[in-house]
């Protein structure tokens, strides 16, 4: 075990090394990020002006659908799994993940799954066009034939996620170095442990949802067909029972990253560590009992509306605890503003805005106005882009020197940050207003009064897209030509076992476990 990586391509194909697998996850997810980003560019190009310019409405639907699916399942989720692979063993002092071969299996399923999903573009009837939430009967009775391939692609993605999560749980529960008690674990590890639990709990439910679709479409069952006594609304319940925990699956690891980065650049320990752990756990618990806030307009009984409204409001409490703790960590710290910190601070501000719009949407009577408008689009991009993507970017810049042993270009990093920050807000801030004024989501055309704001949105989106190419360039440039990172502890305020190993981290670390005091 005490040797370096194998030579050539077989290193990557057959590896069992958590760092290699983490790297592959990261590159794969970035590729998917660019693919999903390309779809977004098509959407924004079409919406640049009112009227139909570039694409057919049918193709526009495929774009919105595939954009959502690729970003959620192909970009954000695998990217965080990549971080988990790289960092969890380093953070808890483990020699590798608990089940290294299964780890590689989880990864290699994904390229195949997305190959299958992408191949639907070339099939008769085109790619899935029913939205990333694939509501029945759009996704059953009225779906293109390629839906069958979509269903099976979701199945194997789910298998990958479940195996990946089981691996993370086993690693965290079983592989911690002596002395690394649960309540000493870095917050990133905690958030991932809880995320993994959410994944194991809800990915099977998603598998159930697509299985019901498959049976309805091809084998004569009537889960979602009222003619047989079924109900399309059942689909929404099953989907959102998966879907709401899913949004926390997407954001919790991001919370973890930010909780590592902010203390490092504030040169203060994280404020309220244990309350952070409990808040994360409460959020995870609550995420199981609020799903129907996505369905306020579907015709639920009043009792349901009220229950799901109040339960949703509750989530604001633990979320508030977190935001409070991040800010208090910075309070009177000796702060510096390197790129990871810039992204982390932007995360706190913008995610909080996303939380507030979430709260607005969670109020059933107002949601009846906001639902399916661009306001919702603005809400979830504040949480998923400024939340998940910004925290990911913070994590990438923060740990890149540890991964590569080289320093990224700080000026370029900061420039990227500002372009991303401005581009992001230019894209999504106006969407709040067009949404409130009545512009519907997922429609390729819009009324004239929304023209100015949509043009701004599109310009912002192109800026944001460009900033991601700068990130790519910065990473490649670091690998090829970065200055050597001098110290093991790259950031002087950073704490944790990952900073006790050399930079770049050797191929095998902690073969004998460190002693944690």
């Amino acid at each position, binding site marked *: 075990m005490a040797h370096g990586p194998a030579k050539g391509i077989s290193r990557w194909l057959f590896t069992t090394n958590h760092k290699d697998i983490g790297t592959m996850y990261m590159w794969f997810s970035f590729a998917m990020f660019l693919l999903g980003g390309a779809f977004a560019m098509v959407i924004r190009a079409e919406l640049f002006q009112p009227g139909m310019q570039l694409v057919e409405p049918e193709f526009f639907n495929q774009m919105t659908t595939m954009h959502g699916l690729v970003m959620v399942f192909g970009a954000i989720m695998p990217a965080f799994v990549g971080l988990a692979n790289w960092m969890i063993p380093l953070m808890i002092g483990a020699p590798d993940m608990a089940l290294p071969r299964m780890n590689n299996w989880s990864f290699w399923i994904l390229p195949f799954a997305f190959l299958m999903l992408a191949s639907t573009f070339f099939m008769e009837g085109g790619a899935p066009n029913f939205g990333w939430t694939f509501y029945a009967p759009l996704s059953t009775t009225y779906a293109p034939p390629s839906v069958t*391939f979509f269903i099976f692609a979701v199945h194997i993605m789910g298998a990958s996620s479940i195996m990946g999560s*089981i691996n993370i*749980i*086993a690693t965290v529960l*079983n592989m911690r170095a002596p002395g690394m008690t649960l309540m000493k674990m870095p917050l990133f590890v905690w958030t991932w442990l809880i995320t993994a639990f959410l994944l194991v709990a809800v990915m099977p439910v998603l598998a*159930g949802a697509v299985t019901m679709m498959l049976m309805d479409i091809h084998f004569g069952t*009537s889960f979602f067909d009222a003619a047989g006594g*079924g109900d399309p609304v059942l689909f929404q319940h099953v989907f959102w029972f998966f879907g709401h925990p899913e949004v926390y699956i997407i954001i919790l690891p991001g919370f973890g990253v930010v909780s590592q980065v902010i203390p490092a650049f504030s040169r203060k320990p994280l404020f309220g560590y244990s309350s952070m752990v409990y808040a994360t756990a409460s959020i995870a618990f609550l995420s199981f009992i609020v799903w129907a806030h996505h369905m306020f307009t579907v015709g639920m009984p009043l009792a349901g509306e009220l229950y799901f409204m109040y339960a949703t409001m509750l989530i604001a409490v633990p979320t508030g605890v977190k935001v409070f703790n991040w800010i208090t960590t910075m309070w009177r710290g000796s702060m510096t503003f390197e790129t990871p910190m810039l992204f982390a601070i932007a995360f706190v501000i913008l995610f909080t805005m996303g939380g507030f719009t979430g709260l607005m949407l969670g109020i059933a009577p107002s949601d009846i106005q906001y639902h399916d408008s661009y306001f919702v689009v603005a809400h979830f991009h504040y949480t998923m882009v400024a939340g998940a993507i910004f925290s990911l970017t913070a994590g990438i810049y923060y740990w890149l020197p540890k991964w590569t042993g080289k320093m990224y270009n700080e000026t370029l990093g900061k420039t990227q940050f500002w372009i991303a920050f401005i581009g992001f807000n230019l894209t999504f801030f106006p969407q709040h207003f067009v949404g409130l004024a009545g512009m519907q989501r997922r429609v390729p055309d819009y009324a004239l009064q929304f023209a100015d704001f949509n043009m701004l949105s599109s310009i912002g989106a192109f800026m944001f897209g460009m900033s991601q190419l700068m990130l790519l360039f910065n990473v490649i440039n670091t690998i090829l030509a970065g200055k050597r990172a001098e110290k093991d502890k790259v950031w002087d305020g950073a704490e944790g076992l990952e900073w006790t190993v050399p930079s770049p981290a050797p191929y095998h670390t902690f073969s004998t476990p460190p002693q944690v005091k």
Partner: protein
Amino acid sequence: MATQGSYYVPEQSKLPLFASLGMFLTVFGAAGWINGSESGMTVFFAGALVLASVMWTWFSTVIKENLAGLNNDQLKRSYVWGMGWFIFSEVMFFAAFFGALFYLRQFAVPWLAGEGHSAMTNELLWKGFENEWPLLTTPEQVREGEAAARFIGAHEPMGWAGLPLINTIILLTSSFTVHFAHTALKNANRKMFNIWLGATVALGIAFLILQVEEYVHAYEELGLTLNAGVYGTTFFMLTGFHGAHVTLGTFMLLVMWLRGLKGHFKHDDAFGFEAASWYWHFVDVVWVGLFIFVYILGS
């Protein structure tokens, strides 16, 4: 938690990549097959073959590593966690279908019949449809008449007292026999281990045979089919997925039985068998849920 010795981190392995390839071909073939493409079936079976042979090699490798003493206690705990959480994920898969049953029965069907605030749904869309469970007359049957309807309800629900009760007794018994096998193994009583485990496998097979008979009965005599509206839908999906899990569980136990004959297990080192037996208990518990919610409360 404490790490003792060194944790076994396997060398490079070709298994994961080929397992992914096999999995991909299997589902890609299946999707093509279902969609009516010519090559779908071939691709499906080719994929399944690849996947099966990779799994075979994978499990053999792990067994050999264990026999060679590479696995320390810590690694074994990883396996325990792994299996435990896998079973939990399976529980959640069934939860989706039990949840669907609950929703359809408690909400969807009554609403179609005009209960709650849905009076007009019934009046305008499904006039004459009445709430009942098991649902024997589908809304479509009421509106379009027998001849035009796609979903035709069963003439009669599946009772619980006949085959299902026998199957319940069989499965419950098998949970005991597998437990006795475990006890025998712990006492290093190899002979009794083989007997009890063999009996469990036999009970599993008996269950499956009776389930096939039950399905034939449902289709031929009761008119209870996948097309029979939500009663048929939930009945077959729940019992069908359970049956698939019994098949897998029986297969696992059969493999463990054969391994037992080869003398693989020691009284304190039998994770493979234990994992299979947990799975078996899980399948059993699901059946109890089915027996109550699908059979007794559904007939």
